[in-house]
C-alpha cells in the first residue's frame, strides 16, 4: 500500500496551496491519481484538488477554450467545445491516452504536471498555443505552456497549483493533426508529433510543430515552423516538406532507451512531421485522426 500519512481535501485553489504549505513533511497534489497510484511517490500527505473548482471546461465569450486542470481526459473526449476546437484535435489526442477506465480519472492537469517528456496531452496543446494558469495563495500567474516544463518530471510550479490551460480563440479554426507512435496502443509513446496550421488566403499564416518523447521536455520545433509560416500553400512542394521535416528532426534531442533508439526516434520525427503537414494540406478536414504510422 501507498505509505501516506494524510489525505487533505481542498475546496479552492488558494486553499490547496495553503494546505500544501502547511506541512509537516513533503506533500503532493492529487487529482485523478492514476500516475501516483502507479508510482507511490514518497510523500507524507497529498492535497486532493478534485473539489477545488478547477475541473470545468468552458468557452469564453472571446472564443478561448479553457480546460480546467482537473478535467478528465474522457471529459476532453466527450466535451462538445473541445470536439469542435481545431477540428477536434485535443479530443483525439485525449482518446489515445491510456485506456477507457484510466481516462475516466486521469486529468489533463495531472498529465502536464507529471511532466514526462512523453506526456500525451503536451504536443497538441503546445501546437495550439496553450497558456497555463497557476494559482498561488493570493494571486494567479499565467505563462505559455512552452515555459511550463523545466526538465523531465520538473515544472515551474514548485508548491503552486496548475488550475488549467487556455487555448486562444484564434486557434479554433486552425487545422491540427497529431500522431502518437507507440509499440502497442496503450504503451507510452515512442514519438509524438502535433502540427497545426492557420491558413488564410491560400497561405500558411501560422505554423506550429510540437514534439513529444524526443527531448527532456515536450518542445516546439521553432526553426521548422519558421520555414512554413508565410508560405503560399502551393509553394509547399515535396522538396520544401522534406527540408522542413529534416530541420524538425534536427531540433529534437532524443534518448536511446529500451523502447527505441535515438536514431529511430529522430527518423520518426522526420517521417511524421512530413506526413502530418501533408495530411493537413491535402485533407478536407474530416479525417485527421492518426492512423498507423
Amino acid at each position: 500500500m501507498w505509505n501516506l500519512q494524510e489525505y487533505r481535501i481542498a475546496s479552492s485553489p488558494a486553499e490547496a496551496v495553503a494546505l500544501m504549505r502547511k506541512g509537516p513533511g513533503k506533500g503532493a497534489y492529487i487529482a485523478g491519481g492514476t500516475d501516483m497510484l502507479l508510482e507511490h511517490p514518497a510523500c507524507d500527505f497529498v492535497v486532493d484538488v478534485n473539489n477545488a473548482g478547477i475541473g470545468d471546461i468552458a468557452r469564453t465569450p472571446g472564443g478561448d477554450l479553457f480546460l480546467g486542470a482537473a478535467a478528465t481526459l474522457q471529459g476532453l473526449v466527450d466535451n462538445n467545445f473541445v470536439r469542435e476546437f481545431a477540428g477536434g484535435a485535443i479530443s483525439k489526442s485525449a482518446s489515445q491516452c491510456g485506456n477507457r477506465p484510466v481516462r475516466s480519472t486521469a486529468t489533463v492537469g495531472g498529465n502536464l504536471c507529471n511532466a514526462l517528456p512523453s506526456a500525451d496531452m503536451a504536443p497538441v496543446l503546445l501546437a495550439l498555443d496553450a497558456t497555463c494558469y497557476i494559482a498561488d495563495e493570493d494571486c494567479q500567474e499565467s505563462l505559455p505552456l512552452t515555459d511550463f516544463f523545466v526538465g523531465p518530471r520538473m515544472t515551474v510550479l514548485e508548491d503552486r497549483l496548475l488550475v488549467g490551460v487556455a487555448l486562444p480563440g484564434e486557434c479554433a479554426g486552425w487545422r491540427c493533426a497529431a500522431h502518437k507512435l507507440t509499440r502497442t496502443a496503450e504503451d507510452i509513446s515512442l514519438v509524438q508529433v502535433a502540427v497545426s496550421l492557420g491558413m488564410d488566403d491560400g497561405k500558411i499564416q501560422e505554423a506550429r510543430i510540437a514534439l513529444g518523447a524526443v527531448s527532456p521536455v515536450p518542445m516546439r520545433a521553432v526553426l521548422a515552423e519558421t520555414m512554413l509560416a508565410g508560405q503560399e500553400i502551393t509553394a509547399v512542394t515535396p522538396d520544401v516538406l522534406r527540408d522542413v521535416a529534416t530541420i524538425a528532426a534536427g531540433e529534437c534531442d532524443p534518448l536511446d532507451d529500451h523502447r527505441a533508439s535515438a536514431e529511430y526516434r529522430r527518423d520518426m520525427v522526420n517521417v511524421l512531421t512530413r506526413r502530418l503537414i501533408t495530411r493537413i494540406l491535402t485533407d478536407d478536414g474530416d479525417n485527421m485522426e492518426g492512423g498507423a504510422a
Partner: protein
Amino acid sequence: MNISFNLNGSATNLEVAPGESLLQALRASRVFSVKLGCETGDCGSCTVLLDGQPVNSCMVVAARVNGSHVTTMEGLLGDDLMIRLQTELVEHGAVQCGYCIPGLLISLYALVKQGPSCGGEIDEEVIRHALTGNLCRCTGYVKPVEAARAVVAAMEVPK
C-alpha cells in the same frame, strides 16, 4: 480516516488508510467481484463505476470516493441490461476462467448504458475502444465483442 459513500445503492461508511486504493477498500469490505489483477491500470479486472464512469479501482484512492456513488457487479445483479450482457457472454463462449468477467461486464454496461461519446451507433470499433482497458487471456477479444454486438443488435430491433 472515515469515508462515507454510496456503495451499490446503500450508504456506506468505511475506515480507510490515507494511501489505500478503492480496490483494497472494496475487497476488505468483502466486495469480491472486484478482482486484484495488475494494480497498474492495465488489466481492468478491478473495474467499477465511479459516479457512472468506468474506472480502475486500483488507480483510485479510496479517500477520494467520499460522497460519491460506487457501483460494482454486486449492485447490478438482476439489472435487465446486465442480465442480457451476462447471457450473451455465456452464449458466445466468452467466459472461461471468469477472472476478467466482472470488470469486462462493467465496461460493457457503461458503454451500452451511456452510448458512445460521439453519439453515434455502438459498432464494433466503439465496442473495442470501450474494452481497451479489459484484458482477457482465455478467450481473447472476438467472443466478448460478438456478445456485445448481439446485445446491441437485440436492443435496436424494437425501433
